[in-house]
């Protein structure tokens, strides 16, 4: 079971990086307009231009 000493910290590290990503995205304002974000993905303004 000694492998757990390595695996558990790795799992923890992965979890922490997820948390860090969430914190970053919130600071970057990605959650400010959830409705708009859902609509923007289907807007095709890049084709029009």
């Amino acid at each position, binding site marked *: 079971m000694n492998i757990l000493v390595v695996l558990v910290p790795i799992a923890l590290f992965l*979890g922490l990086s997820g948390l860090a990503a969430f914190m970053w995205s*919130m600071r970057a304002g990605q959650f400010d307009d959830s409705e708009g974000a859902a609509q923007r993905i289907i807007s095709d303004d890049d084709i029009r231009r």
Partner: protein
Amino acid sequence: MTDTVDYAHWSRRTGEGVCEIDLAIDGIDCAACLDEIEGTLKPLRGVERARLNLTSRRLTLAWREAETSPDLLIDELARIGYGAFPFEVERAEASEAAHMKWLLKCLAVAGFASMNIMLLSVSVWSGHGADMDGPTRDFFHWMSALIALPAAAYAGQPFFRNALAGLRARSLNMDVPISLGILLALGMSIYETMHHAEHAYFDSAVMLLLFLLLGRVSDQMMRRKTRAAAANLSALKGERATRLAQDGSLVVVPVGALRNGDRVLVRSGERVPADARIVSGRSEVDESVITGETMRRTVQEGAALFAGSINFDGVLTLEVTAAGQSSLLDEVGRLVEKASEARSGYRRLADRAARIYAPMVHVTAFSTLAGWLMYGASLHDAIITAIAVLIITCPCALALAVPAVQVVASGSLFRAGVYLNSAEALERLAEADWVVFDKSGTLTLPTPGVVNAAFLPDGALELASRLALASHHPLAGAVARAGGARTPFDLAEEVPGAGVKAQADGAELRLGSAAFCGWTGDADSQTPGTSVLFFRNGRDVFKLEIRQALRVDAVETVAALKKLGLGVSILSGDLPSAVAPVAATLGVADWKGGLKPADKIAALEALKARGRKVLMVGDGLNDAPALAAAHASLSPISAVDLAQAQSDAVFLGDRLQPVVEAVGTSRMARALMRQNLWLAVLYNAIAVPMAVMGFVTPLIAAAAMSGSSVLVTLNALRCRRAANEAEPDATTQPLPANRLALAGKG
């Protein structure tokens, strides 16, 4: 409307020659609007950035000063069909946004921690039956501690702070047992881990935090949504003033930019933007929003005017005497302050529950400890059992019972067009058993209308309203709205002090005074507070009676309220002779007119003395003290700011129906809150004996806690279903945009 608007007050400089402004956008009804608005603005010369927030319906617009101006961009938006109104972020809203971010961060940390700890805990639980050895279990417990301690220290802050604040104020709020439960669970788990014990409660502590934070976040989200929508509406109302600059030019500025001593010009039909003294001019002013009286007052040079009164005819030049927030009558301000003290003593259902619950939990835990010691258990085992009792009773369900219902109920009300100012308003609204209405602007529409439209021949009102479009006079405005005309006559001519005339189909049309139109009969109205205007079509002359008409559903609303078991009365500042017909139409026997703000409070006190809990519905400055003194209060969106600030909720639209809905939904909500509290009690009745007997393992604690929370939340969701059933065609009324926009332009 050729005056230049000064946008400097709203915009901010973000870079070299670049300015930014926030606009509340009116008319967004679908997602395609996003493309349309941004797509139209972005290619324009000088536009640096245009980003629409579809959630809050606000547009952030950045432009290069040298190349364009906000006027052009706002005009462009108007051309494609959207109203754009400059917007100022209130400080309260900004701090709420910051609080929301903080809560979300706490939630994220708690979510991360509980997932990872649960991963370890499930391994330990399944290891009990299998062959997990002691060192591995200890290692898992230590890892859990490593995650749980920092996570609880961070994510628990909202609760610890509230608990400390409560203790400092010498009261037990719900956060005290929560904090205590979390801290004890963590402390005990560390002690147990150090002694290689089988059970640790890290998962319970962190999961408790996660559930509670979920409740708080959704509560905060709902509150923020409501507040943002209300702030947009006030931007749409957009109170502006025409300032007379030193060089004699006219600049339109927001009311917030006015300073004492500024000269402002108020034309006929416009609102007085701030408390002011008349420097020159002579006019009649309508002060119904301040005193409730619909009779107009003649004013001239030197007279003091209050913000919100409407200038009827003639142009007034005013000097601002009390700019900004100070614009209210001294007497009203004093009364409001005194009256709002009375309400601060109100204790919320959740707090009352906590007051009973918290000591009970602590006594139970303590007697468990004592009981086991007497029974002969070791000190260690007795303490462990006592702490297990604290953990299992930690009021997860109890703490969610009330907020969950609040979120769902205020969401249903939001969709019905009622914006709650505070969550506890729900409970007070539910308790109301007597409704007191103000008359002017509340039972009646805030803007006057033609009340005898039904007695006019076909087509007359349409012609009159087309003619009325040529005039700025408020009475003409009322005629224009009543007829719904959109195209004015080309050659309409305004005769100052008399009326307007135009040629159409070979006949001369006239709209104005009796003499101007050649009316020979009685030139007055039977009903006080009614203005008359005459319309001449060739030879025929008609009398138009203009007055603040009753809201369309006023009669039904009063009937519905009575059916709900509420008493109804009318307290008005208007003349008794003007109130009587309204009361008669509505079938309200208990009414009073000619009341001053202090009289209204006295009348409310009299009702209170009879054991009534009064819901006050009012809109005027004269209602503000009564709104603050009443058990619960509502205002229409057209109410003055001070009245809105004192109200528990603001409702939209031209109907009174939201009043019934507010009472109905809040009663439903209170019933569900009670049910939820009883569910929590039931849960405890089952779980506590088990905990006292020492049967509770971490696995059982986790299952019980999440089970009860889910149960309570599901029960709260019934509020939404009930609200939808009660109102099957609960189509959200679109914002009364036209009216608000009109009001904004004066």
